[in-house]
């Protein structure tokens, strides 16, 4: 086993959509969809969907292996600041040239494969980000 189907499925909204929790008590927004504001603890929150666009706060090119294959390395892991103001940790994919990565780069969310169980197991999909320039081309 690598993942639990129920853990993934229960949270599928957060894997398939970029959801933001807005607090009516302290006014802060947070990621992902939450029942309670992590800043002030209030349950007086509403959930809205992000437009899926933002800029790269910063990123790393990583070789740190957490599965048995090296095929996918290096990966780019970034912290994205959505236009709605909240930050999201995510993988950045489809980067044509790693040297084009820089803080401030415009990115947008896309649905991609996260991982799969065993060779014949389930495939988990979720959101990653791509540089917006790719879509504009």
């Amino acid at each position, binding site marked *: 086993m690598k993942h639990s189907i129920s853990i993934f499925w229960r949270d599928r909204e957060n894997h398939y959509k970029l959801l933001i929790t807005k607090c009516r008590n302290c006014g802060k927004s947070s990621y992902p969809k939450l029942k309670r504001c992590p800043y002030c603890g209030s349950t007086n929150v509403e959930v809205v969907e992000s437009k899926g666009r933002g800029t790269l706060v910063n990123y790393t*090119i990583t070789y740190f292996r*957490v599965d048995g294959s090296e095929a996918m390395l290096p990966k780019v892991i970034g912290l994205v600041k959505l236009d709605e103001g909240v930050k999201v940790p995510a*993988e950045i994919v489809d980067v044509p040239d790693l040297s084009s990565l820089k803080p401030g780069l415009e990115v947008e969310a896309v649905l991609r494969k996260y*991982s799969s169980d065993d060779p014949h197991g389930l495939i988990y999909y979720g959101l990653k980000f791509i540089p917006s320039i790719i879509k504009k081309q």
Partner: protein
Amino acid sequence: MWGDGMLKAYIASVEMLKIDRHYDKSYVDMALEVIDAVLNGVGLTPSELDYIIVSTAFNSLLTHQVGSSYILAQYLGVKNVNVASVEAGEASGAAALDYAASLVKSGKASKVLVVGFEKMSEYPSWIVNREYSKILNYMVEGIKGVTPPDYAAIIMKEYMSKYNVTREDVFKWSVKMHENASKNPYAQLPFKISKDSYVKSLVMSDPITMHDSFPVGDGAAAALIVGDGFTNNAPKELVELVDVESSVNLPLYLREDLTVFEATAKSLSKLTSKHRVSVTKDMALNVYDTYNIYGLITLESLGVAERGKAHEVIDEMPYLNVGGGLKARGHPVGATPLYQLGELYKLMTEGFAGMKYDGEYGIIHSMSGPDNTSWLVLLRRCVR
């Protein structure tokens, strides 16, 4: 709060195992080795202990053992003792010390053995990396493949750019830690490194290299925490376990400022308001530096350096991470706070790594991930 009229808790002994890849030792072998050393040192038998508190973060994941506290007691041949494990991610050992101190200060127990261990070499590194990454939120970070060194890398880049600090400046931490570790007989990497050795080091999460991060190793350390009664035959210099405080920070992606550890700062302000201590450059201080950058930010969050300036003060701190820190002493996770305690305890009594500290207070800082929870342990030297 723990006040002056209450019972006090003291460190009676701390023993450590050299950190290494101990392929020939199980977690039980390692733990019993340091427990024996502690008990032999103070002249107690295992059955005289009131409690054995275990600190481990990964034993159920990496050795398939839940309930390792009673398994240990079974191997030790003791039955009357109370046993339990404490876990707070990478800060488990600090929480175990808190439980131990509470038992002594409540009068429930007078001889509590805290043993921390972690067996990190039972599986190939990609499996250890995967299990280690479970200190972050699996539902948000783990499931996406976001790992601890990725965060360290992002924090380091933010820090360098915000404060105009260079790669070399950050790497001063590694150099100092290895210098210190070279005098620590328990260190996993007891050798000096050059100021640019990161250039040839394997990249983990750029700019974090192996030389910016801790080595993976097995280790165990044990401490005996006792009440007033036990200290009658104690040596002249005694170390009091004064207090333990901790706080929680937001997950990294929800923080406004990525370059400060607010839980660390908050824990210090709890200690300050209770005991009027602050952290100074000449204090015996042992902080968590899973990555160089975390050591620097911790110093700043503890108020001993200005933001962005920690790399300028570390050479003015003679008693900073005298064992070499996580970077060079090593980081057998559940055991690490016990190694920190051992180094400080010895530094404050018999001497450690060729040094002796005569100041009143010593502080241990432990945290899980980038300040997700941060714990401070306050020690005080009592001359009798």
